[in-house]
């Protein structure tokens, strides 16, 4: 057992970022990063994109490789799971029975794919995508001409569909909800995404019940509520993620749609923090509403904030939620929480569409945007800054592609936070 120091459980985006932030902020004691995957911390977003389309990618894209872990004196225990915490004695108990003492500990255990609970969906009948190993297994079976059924029209399902088309597969996407991208994206944007997939040859089916998955010869069939079947060689599901709370539960920490943390990312135990996909926290920009985000930048930023707070900074986490998705030649970005808005203002220009979401007071609470490549990035960033500053920009100016958002950022009035 190394001397007590900072221990991070989960060597993903949030854990890796926390470990490097501890060093950047001058912490000199031991830093131990424990993760159950065999790799050094790596990026997950490419798994459904470049890793899926490029056969020569044989290694994940490292966030911190062995050299950088060594240079930062971060001890990385790979392939090891923490089974529970002894909170009273500040000990982490590993799966092999060994223990690791900690001064402060971060739970950054991420989330896992939600499993389909349908007859026939068990025993390898359906593939999922979360890890590099999952990505290689799926890629190996996406051959030109093979028929893929994707269950779930969220980001992961849609990105897999786009990558499979690029690999020459015939793709059918089945979504049980009335439309794709029900969570976090307005109908207008979902419609643009759907049209792009259909133009690429994806058959998109929405609002359908699924009865079961059947083996048929070498392949499978997704049997729908009306008895019709989608015949295919392979079924993959992207129906959301479940926060990985096993460790928190085994340790007696509060859990509420994720590991429950306060505004400074501290859990119900004062020496234990949480960050990333596993963490539920109150967001000051949205009236303290409790959120759990599954997004790359949130994992990065929460990892950094949690690390500083492990060192006593007492910083409140208030970054604007933000994520992107790439499908075909299109880039989609959302900043803020679209469902906090009651009114949508649309702006068009340069092949891109932006939707500004305003609340009843006229405050900008979110922007959703889609366009070629990274065309929407700059405007989304400016809107994000307006969201962070609680600004109420003039809707007519938002709708006018010639009105500069930078000018609106400088001149729009602020809406005070409710007491």
């Amino acid at each position, binding site marked *: 057992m190394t001397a007590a120091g900072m221990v991070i459980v989960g060597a993903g985006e949030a854990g890796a970022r926390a470990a490097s932030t501890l060093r*950047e902020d001058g912490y000199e004691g031991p830093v131990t990063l424990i993760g159950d995957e065999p790799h050094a911390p790596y990026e997950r977003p490419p798994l459904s994109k470049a890793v899926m389309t490029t056969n020569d990618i044989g290694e994940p894209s490292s966030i911190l490789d062995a050299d950088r872990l060594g240079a930062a004196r971060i001890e990385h225990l790979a392939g090891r799971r923490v089974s529970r915490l002894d909170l009273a004695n500040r000990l982490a108990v590993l799966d092999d029975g060994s223990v690791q003492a900690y001064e402060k500990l971060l739970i950054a255990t991420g989330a896992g794919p939600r499993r389909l609970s349908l007859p026939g969906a068990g025993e390898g009948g359906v593939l999922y995508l979360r890890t590099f190993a999952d990505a290689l297994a799926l890629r190996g079976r996406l051959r030109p001409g093979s028929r893929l059924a994707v269950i779930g029209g969220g980001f992961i399902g849609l990105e897999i569909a786009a990558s499979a088309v690029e690999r020459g597969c015939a793709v059918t996407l089945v979504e049980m909800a009335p439309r794709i991208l029900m969570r976090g994206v307005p109908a207008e944007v979902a419609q643009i995404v759907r049209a792009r997939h259909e133009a690429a040859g994806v058959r998109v089916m929405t609002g359908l019940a699924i009865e079961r998955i059947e083996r048929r010869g070498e392949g499978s069939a997704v049997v729908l509520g009306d008895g019709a079947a989608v015949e295919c060689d392979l079924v993959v599901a992207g129906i959301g993620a479940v926060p990985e709370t096993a460790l928190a539960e085994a340790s007696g920490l509060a859990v509420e749609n994720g590991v429950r943390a306060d505004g400074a990312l501290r859990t119900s135990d004062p020496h234990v923090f949480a960050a990333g996909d596993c963490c539920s926290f109150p967001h000051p920009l949205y009236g303290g509403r409790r959120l759990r985000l599954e997004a790359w*930048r949130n994992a*990065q930023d929460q990892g950094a904030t949690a690390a500083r707070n492990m060192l006593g900074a007492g910083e409140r986490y208030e970054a604007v939620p933000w994520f992107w998705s790439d499908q075909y030649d299109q880039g989609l970005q959302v900043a803020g929480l679209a469902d906090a808005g009651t009114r949508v203002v649309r702006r068009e220009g340069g092949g891109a569409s932006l939707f500004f979401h305003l609340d009843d007071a006229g405050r900008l609470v979110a922007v959703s945007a889609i366009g070629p490549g*990274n065309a929407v*990035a700059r405007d989304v*960033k400016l809107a994000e800054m307006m969201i962070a500053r609680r600004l109420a920009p003039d809707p007519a100016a938002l709708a006018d592609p010639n009105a500069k958002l930078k000018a609106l950022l400088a001149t729009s009035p602020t809406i005070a936070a409710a007491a």
Partner: protein
Amino acid sequence: MSNWVEACAADEVEEEDVIRFDHEGRTFAIFRSPEDEYFATDGLCTHERVHLADGLVMDDVIECPKHNGRFNYKTGRGKGAPICVDLKTYPVRVEGGRVLIDLG
């Protein structure tokens, strides 16, 4: 050895903004600061080779459009994760309303 090439007209770049300049298979970013000075860097982010000209310029910082990596475009210095490699910069001069950069 210097190798000055003409990148663009000075008024093609707005104040506190950036444009992309492609030359002989390479790509550069040409910046105009809020103080009306011009700067040039490599055009692609050192993280995942995305065009920086799609990003946002605020003061002396360019923020990458992909994962919000930030660089000081005057010095090329990267400002923390996910950036671990600085951006190469190039000398710039403005002559007769044209922006010239020295590719060395």
